[in-house]
């Protein structure tokens, strides 16, 4: 039985199946809000339609990465001796599938709020659209991290005989996939609220962009932690000792940093979203809001740091 091809096909299915969820929901939200906005302001329907398609196209990119990874998995050459093993291929699929969830959802949520904003204040369309695009671009970063890790897993070289090394490859995909969810969704939530704020107060446009970007940068930390641990897992040496506790440590390490990053990413995004609405209401107090946001986000990030510490301790025990 050709287990390598079998796992590549399983990975491809998981990748595209999971990868379609976020963008599907997100773009649906965008479409819904575009329709609501058109209902209120039929005169700007064509501008809303154009903005909707731009916003949806960016949100779609996460699931396009998932499509590319599935295709690579389906059409790979698994008869050559340099072909990666089953664990790496399933890991690559899970990594990109899960990694597209947050960015797709977040990108769609950002575009949805921008639709309501353009409908409310069609004169601020250009500014709302640019805030949306900048915010969406940051929300796509976690899915790009996932894409990179998937490619490293697919093209990372031949299967080794060491089961712990192979499990580390699988878990590196799981860690990056889960770790991308919170940061993608959180950054999208804050981008949405910043776009909404821009439509209410277009003059505060540059302050809104800077508040949003500072907040999003903090919301990205869990994805960066996941990327770091995932690379450490990929580079676990082939000579690692084969014991049951090493296997458990590898699995625990990936789950800790990956799943542990979901909450802090979403939470930091919420904080950044409210800070952006506060700046829109009262741009003169920007520094006060950014300070409060950063204080709150720092506390919310602490759990991601605990998860990173536990993951690194477990990695040392391998």
């Amino acid at each position, binding site marked *: 039985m050709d287990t390598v091809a079998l796992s590549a096909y399983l990975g491809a299915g998981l990748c595209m199946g999971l990868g379609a969820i976020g963008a599907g929901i997100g773009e649906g939200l965008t479409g819904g809000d575009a329709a609501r906005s058109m209902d209120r302001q039929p005169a700007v329907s064509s501008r809303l339609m154009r903005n909707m398609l731009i916003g949806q196209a960016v949100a779609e990119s996460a699931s396009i990465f998932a499509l590319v990874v599935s295709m690579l998995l389906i059409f790979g050459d698994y008869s050559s001796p340099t072909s990666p093993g089953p664990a790496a291929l399933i890991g690559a699929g899970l990594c990109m599938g899960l990694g597209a969830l947050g960015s797709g959802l977040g990108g769609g949520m950002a575009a949805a709020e921008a639709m309501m904003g353009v409908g409310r204040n069609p004169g601020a369309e250009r500014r709302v659209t640019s805030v949306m695009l900048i915010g969406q671009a940051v929300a796509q970063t976690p899915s790009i991290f996932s894409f990179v890790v998937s490619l490293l897993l697919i093209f990372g070289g031949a299967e080794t005989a060491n089961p712990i090394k192979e499990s580390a490859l699988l878990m590196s995909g799981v860690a990056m996939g889960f770790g991308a969810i919170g940061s993608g969704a959180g950054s999208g939530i804050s981008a949405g609220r910043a776009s909404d704020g821009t439509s209410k107060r277009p003059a505060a446009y540059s302050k809104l962009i800077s508040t949003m970007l500072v907040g999003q940068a903090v919301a990205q930390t869990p994805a960066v932690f996941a990327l770091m641990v995932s690379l450490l897992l990929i580079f676990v040496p082939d000579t690692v000792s084969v*014991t*049951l506790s090493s296997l458990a440590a590898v699995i*625990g390490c990936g789950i800790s940093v990956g799943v542990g990053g979901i*909450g*802090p990413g979403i*939470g930091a995004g919420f904080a950044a*979203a*409210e800070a952006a609405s506060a700046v829109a209401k009262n741009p003169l107090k920007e520094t006060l809001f950014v300070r*409060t946001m950063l204080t709150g986000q720092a506390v919310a990030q602490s759990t991601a740091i*605990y998860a990173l510490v536990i993951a690194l301790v477990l990695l040392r025990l391998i």
Partner: protein
Amino acid sequence: MFDQITGSELIRAFALLGAGLCMGFGAIGPGIGEGFAAGKACEGISRSPEHANLLTRTMLVGQAVSESTGIYSLVVALLLIFVV
């Protein structure tokens, strides 16, 4: 693959697996909850900036309580790694 697994080796392995599960899932709630608190504090300060200190203090107290479950997860994970 794992030829001679002893009872203590099995316990050790499950303790490490448990540590990862514990900290991973345990971090979700406090992360989202504390972010909510920070967001609502920003919202409150935007309404009445003169109460910024009071609101920041309240936010931090609320987050500290919310953080406690994250710290429980950390303590349990560390116990599983270093004590069990």
